[in-house]
Every structure is written in structure tokens, then in C-alpha cells.
């Protein structure tokens, strides 16, 4: 182990702000990117499923025999 104390480690020889500023932003972005991708994918899947369901129920309605309510539309 290179460091004598946690304080030493955090200070980074008076370059703490620069070193930890780099670490923080890199970590933040590399965590955020996959999280945003997951969320985007979930949203997309939900949207596509909704569309698919809507299409299917439309197709079903079209193939069903005419009911009285539908006939009343003229």
C-alpha cells in the first residue's frame, strides 16, 4: 500500500481536487450512460407493446361479426 493514511489518500499530494474531480465525473458518466440506456429500452419496449396490442385488438374488432352497437353507427 502506497498511502500512510486516508487523509493522505484523499489529499493526493495537494492535487486532490484535480484527481477526484476527474474520477467523479468519469464515474458519474459511466454509471449514467448504462442507466439511461436501460430506461430508454424499457420505455421503447412498453411503447412497442402498446402499439402491437392496439393493432391486434383493431384486427380482432374488424374480423368479428357485426354487433348491434356497431350496426347502429350506420
Amino acid at each position: 500500500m502506497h498511502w500512510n493514511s486516508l487523509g493522505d489518500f484523499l489529499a493526493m499530494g495537494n492535487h486532490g481536487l484535480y484527481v477526484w474531480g476527474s474520477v467523479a465525473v468519469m464515474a458519474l458518466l459511466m454509471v449514467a450512460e448504462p442507466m439511461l440506456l436501460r430506461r430508454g429500452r424499457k420505455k421503447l419496449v412498453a411503447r412497442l407493446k402498446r402499439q402491437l396490442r392496439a393493432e391486434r385488438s383493431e384486427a380482432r374488432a374488424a374480423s368479428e361479426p357485426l354487433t348491434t352497437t356497431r350496426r347502429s353507427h350506420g
Partner: protein
Amino acid sequence: MSNRVINWFRYASPQTFYPLAGKLIPWFWALAAIFGVAGLSIGFLLAPTDAQQGEGYRIIFLHVPASWMSMFIYLVMAFWAGTGLAFNTRLSGMMASALAPTGALFAFLSLWTGALWGKPMWGAWWVWDARLTSELILLFLYIGFIALQAAIDDPRRADKAGAILALVGVVNIPIIYFSVKWWNTLHQGASVSLTKAPSMAAMMLWGMLLCALACWMYSIAVALMRVRTIMLERERHTDWVRALLGERE
């Protein structure tokens, strides 16, 4: 022998690539975590102090991998873009689009960590020298590629336009790489190159290489995640996507 040959072209169709990518993603995440923990432990806990730069040099373990990835991802992106342009394969354009945001992320991180390294060492966040300027151009190329594709509604046409931009921009990569040799610059020369022994302690070198490997694995995992989303979106009217969505209800 011949019946053992895998038909690699099979994986060039989105339908077969989609589940394969899904299976591979967790493995690349696991490798990214292992390499990342190992590289950062060596770099931040074990590696010795640099004789000239003190402890501030430790930014190297983030800066160099990010910069390498930003350049390498661009080459891979341009390769896929070119393949799509030449052979008109569906998957190629999707791969190129999936790589661009991650490449932009690493180009940004390269500039960010570079600025935080430059300030204590050179006394400036930014200088308009060849290395820094060409890396900034790389970031703009990525952003330009993404914006151009987003501006065109038809995905196949967006792929073609993006591909031309990506291929023209390739000229920037050797400029970044050799800029420290070709011009007098504030940026230090390469610590690791293909032609000579690395000019750094073994511990520092290992830390850096492991961090770079972690970034590789991260990039592959994220690109596969994104390409899967792009596939679903673009192929939403095909039977295989409908079957997939139907199954999950």
C-alpha cells in the same frame, strides 16, 4: 472439418444478433468490473509517486484509457459505417449509430480529465495546441455524426449520410495520434507506444493497461445495449420483433 465451420454471416442479421448480444452483455459488464477494480487498485493504491508530477499524475489512469477509447471507437464506428455504405448491410449502420454516443462520452472525458491534469501541471485548463485541438475536433465529429443522423427521418439515408461524415473524419485520428510528434506541443509525448519500450514504471503501466481494458469492456457492453434498442426500434414492423414483444406479454 467443413461441418464445424460456423457461419459467421448468420450473426450479421439483426434477428440472430439480438439474442446473442443479450447473452454477451452481462459477461462484458463482469469483465469491465474486474478489470476496473484491478486497474484502479493498482493505479490509486499501489503505484508509486511520479518523480516529476507527484500524485497528480494519477489522472493518467483515467485520461489515457478515455483518450484511447475515444480514438479507437471512432475507427470502429467508421469501419462499420464504411461496411454499411459498401455492402448495404442492415446491421452495420446500427452498429455505427450505437457507437457514436459512447465515443463522444470518452472524447469528452478525455478533454475533461486532460483539463484537470493540465491545470496543476501546465497552469492552464486549456491551450490551443495540436493534441488538444484535434481531440476537440474529434468530439465535434461525434456530435456532428449524431446530429446529422438525428436530422434525417429515413434510417437508411441517415446511415449513408452519417457514414460519409464518419469516413471523412477518419483523417483526424492519425492527426491526434501523431500530433505530439509532428508539432511542438505542451502535451507530453506518448508514454506507451508500439515502437519502443514504455517510459514508465511497470506498476503504472499495468494500472493503465487494466483501466484501458476495463474501458474496452465497458464500451462493448454499452454499445451492445444500445444496438439492441436501435434494432427493436428500426425492426419494429418485422415478424421477429413482433414475436419477441408478444412473448413477453
